[in-house]
């Protein structure tokens, strides 16, 4: 068993014993199983998959880090939303908003902001699709 902690600057989002964790590392997706060798890696924005027993949990995360010593996995990220906290309507709104901003953006800075907003929203919507396919 792995002891998993998902922590954001605001609070501890998730803490539980799990079977495996799949995270989007900087060089590609990695799955951490018990007795994994000591690892510290950067994470990209993406989706974390957590398996515990027969259950699967998904989290949409911002960039951050993962650290493990084979017994414990600590994931530090700028944001993390569980599958139940995401609202489809809000995401679609966010995507539309980002597209609008993108078309209006005049300088590089606002363009970047709009792109990152869009990326976040798209990750969230991917998470939502995953959840639906399970059910």
């Amino acid at each position, binding site marked *: 068993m792995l002891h998993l902690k998902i922590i*954001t600057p605001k609070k501890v989002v998730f803490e539980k014993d799990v079977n495996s964790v799949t995270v989007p590392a900087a*060089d590609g997706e990695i799955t951490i199983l018990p007795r994994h060798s*000591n690892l510290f890696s950067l994470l990209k924005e993406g989706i974390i998959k957590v398996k515990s027993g027969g259950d699967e949990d998904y989290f949409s995360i911002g960039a951050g880090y993962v650290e493990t010593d084979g017994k414990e996995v600590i994931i530090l990220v700028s944001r993390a939303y569980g599958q139940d906290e995401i609202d489809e309507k809000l995401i679609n709104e966010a995507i539309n908003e980002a597209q609008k901003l993108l078309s209006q953006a005049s300088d590089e800075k606002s363009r970047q902001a709009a792109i990152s907003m869009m990326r976040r929203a798209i990750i969230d919507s991917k998470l939502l699709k995953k959840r639906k396919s399970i059910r």
Partner: protein
Amino acid sequence: MNLRILRKKIKSIANVKKITRAMQLVSAVKMKKAQQEAIETIPYRTFLEKIILKSMSQVDKAHSPLLSSKTNNNKYLYIVISSNKGLCGFFNFSIFKFINNQIDLKNSEFIVLGKKAANFISKIGGKIIADFSTINFNNAVSPIFTESLKKFLIGDYEMVFLIYNHFISATKFETIKTQLLPTTISYIKKVETKEKINEYLIEPDPKTVIDEVLKNLIEEKIRGAIIESQAAEHSARMLAMKNATDNAGEIIYNLTLLRNKVRQEKITNELLDMVSAKISVESN
């Protein structure tokens, strides 16, 4: 003293008491919220520090420009966190005193958060390079971080410090100065020497990682300081308002006593008048 003036005074002080009492209650709620937030940010920072410590064994000081000063021109940047509103006891005063006693204004520049500190520093002749008082404090974290990091990296300052009120308990806070840049890790080592440092696989490579992690830690330090300072502000205001409420109660008590005395005196005088009038009528 006039009876009518006394009654008016009692009434107005009772009103003041009501207001201070309401402010006390509001601050108590806000403080609890801020305190909760402050506690919830702790795990992120402690784990970040742990990770830095673990990966530090494989990293050289030269890997990150954040670990050593570019210059030694004795110029310092201070980030001062105070409050926008007054009526919070010696919360702001404690910071002023600290600045006055410990900081040499000549080779210091300031980034301020909170109107009170901005006013004070400009009054004593300090140089303010940025003032973030007007925006929401929580949104100020990233501009403060970017600004101070940029100036540090181009070698404008030898060191960057944070000055803020550290929240200790609901009734206690302490003004402290912490070094932000260059980042020191010695204090972490003291706590963690017992933990064995294993060989770590660091991806993509220690150099990229350490820079990233250190920057994150600095940003979190600023955020933590702001949240703590807010908790301290609310607790200071709560205490100040509690004292004000208590004092108003005492004043009302004394004034009521005085009012009753004056009233009785008046009645006695009236009785005396009547009696003396009666005597003078009867003697005629």
